[in-house]
């Protein structure tokens, strides 16, 4: 795989993660209460961490990429998208985060299906895996704190 192609894909993923950072920054501005801002700040920090990971990947060769997949438990599949609002609660924020990760995961899965190139596939698999891990993290929080009785 040409280096430029590899770099382009990582740049694409980077752009998405930076958009996510920007998204949560905007949500922080919309949020009215300190408890919302604290959580949004934490999620934003995680997205910034993802940006750093991807930036580090740019300096690595595609062969060094490790693919990690986590099973999809569909915990957020049937949840309704929450809208950013100044009075959003813990549940709303987690749903927003899960749905975002879900969409990113679906995008990389789609890209994975569209290519036969094994190296490209590996990168998309890695990116899809990362997004599913993030989604799973939020799903676990949702399970533990939002619906402990369900």
């Amino acid at each position, binding site marked *: 795989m040409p280096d430029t192609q590899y770099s382009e894909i990582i740049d694409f993923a980077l752009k998405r993660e930076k958009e996510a950072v920007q998204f949560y920054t905007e949500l922080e501005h919309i949020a*009215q*209460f*300190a*408890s919302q*801002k*604290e*959580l949004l700040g*934490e999620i934003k920090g995680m997205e910034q961490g993802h940006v750093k990971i991807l930036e580090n990947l740019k300096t690595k060769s595609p062969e060094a990429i490790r693919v990690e997949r986590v*099973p999809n*438990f*569909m*915990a957020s*599949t*049937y*949840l*309704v998208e*929450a809208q950013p609002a100044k009075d959003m*609660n*813990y*549940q709303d924020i987690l*749903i927003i985060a899960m749905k975002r990760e879900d969409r990113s995961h679906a995008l990389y899965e789609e890209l994975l299906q569209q290519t036969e190139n094994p190296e490209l596939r590996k990168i998309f698999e890695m990116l899809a895996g990362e997004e599913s891990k993030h989604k799973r993290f939020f799903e676990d*929080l949702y*399970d533990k*704190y*939002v*619906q*402990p*009785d*369900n």
Partner: protein
Amino acid sequence: MSLKDILSPLTVWRRTAEKPYTVIDPINDRPGAARYRGFHKNDMEACIGCGTCETICQNAAIDLVPVEGIETTNGDSGLRPQIDYGRCCWCALCVDICTTSSLTMSNEYIWVDTDPEVFRFVPGAENKPWDNSELGYSRAEGYQLLDPERVEMPELEPDTRLTSFIEMVQGYSAEQAKKEADRCVECGICMAACPAHMDIPGYIKAIRENDINGGLALMYQTNPFPASCGRICTHRCEEVCAINHTGDPIAIRWLKRYIADMADESDYQAITKTAEPERTEKVAIIGAGPGGLSAAYYLRLLGYQVTVFEAQPHGGGMLRYGIPEYRLPYDQLDKDIDLVASLGVEIKYNTRINGLKESNGPKESDGPGSDGGPAPSFEQLYQDYDAVFFSTGLPDPYTLGIQGEDHPRVISGISILEDVTAGKTPDLRKSVAVVGGGNVAMDAARTARRMGCEVTVLYRRREVDMPADEEEITEAKEEGVKFITQAIPVRIEDKPEAKGEQAAFVWGEAEMVDQGEDRRPKPVLQEDKIHTDLFDTVVPAIGQGSSLDFIPEDMAAKIGIIKYKIKVGLHGETGEPKIFAGGDISNRLKDAISAIADGHRAAKGIDRYLRENQSKKETS
């Protein structure tokens, strides 16, 4: 000298041709009898270090000692019996009383050593030749020094229960309470498990000695809600009760209730009076739930001027607005609250603190305790008081988050319970689906049954995973609540023929996926196994969240909020020295007794903070 005298010694030589009378190899040739009471063995894994063996030993031969590799855990003191064979009389009472049956005796009786210290040893801690001996003394099957069976609590029959909200548990008589108290071995393992560390063996002993006021005084040392906790406590103490290993755990909660019921209300103040002088410092408390009132009680005992601000017209928090009267009658809750108020704690009801700079008026102006004046903001309390404690609980119900949940026939479990407390009749109609498996779900389901509804509980996981108390689940079943487990909510639909009068609840069957040890299995929706059921009302009861909107942003940054919870230290300290917090907004257990314990600890923290402040002022 006769000839006999000369020959007699020679007759001894005859013996040389006979078989020996002594045992040549006594260790191998003369084992102890099958049930001989020889050296002790102890199953270190089964033993919980309750110390009952030490207590019963008539020769003071047993001490409980720390042992390397054995940690103190919930339900295990981390100690193990050490036996002094210079004192032991091998009576085996220790084996007979052992609450876990871990202590037994081998049939070995020979142990030779030149060091006398080795004969004070901890069975099971080091390898001994008799460790694997199958023979020796153990308690015979069916033989019990302790009574393994709990005194049954009289309760209303399920059919009778459903006719009203009258309390279903009727309480022990004096005879029953004493009989149950007699089962306690006073090991104290329960005290460590109780979040408030109540002196449980102490007040159970008081029942045995018919010293009700003494028992009540002991309870008030760590818990100012004995009448309430005697009914609805999550009784973590009973889970670790030593007797639970071979029989029914002691009914600690019911014994607590017995004392609270028996103590004369007129004696309460005398029992709980304080000798502390009045102090001038003022403490504001937000929330008159168990956490807030517990802090108020202990601060008042220390002499502080305490004001409690409560948004609702009555105190008790979730004890009143989240627990139905058939489990906790309001007069019993009021008994606990009245005692706190009677000490001089001012409780301002109908006073909702808000985080805005400008004060808003009270939400309701005619409730008890309301002075009709403006409700202060959090910042005002911070300015006007020497310390602030807040314990505002988890009042906001989370939704199912699925499509169609805005259907008019969807009502949250908490709002049903609140309505009933407020004397309103929730519009439930006939068929009700309650979604969730916690105590709120069970209470909502059982409340609906008392209102004549047919109730089905749907829960995502298995029954064994339900967070509700086991007895709540059992009682719900007795009362005719149906259960569908491994049912994942998918969406709520409005069937045209139902015209908004019924909700179609769509749910799918779950497959449980193991998540490894100590983690609940994950329910995963099987999309090919979807069901639709029509209900008059769908009641989500899956969890609740905090409402911290009253804390201004600049102050919240100092206090420290993580994932909608307040980060606190051991004594409820937040990042802002003057502000303390506790209860469901900060702790993990989210039950009344934990909130009570938090309130007590915070009172100590506030006391220390204010005394240090005073010292600083005096020295400067």
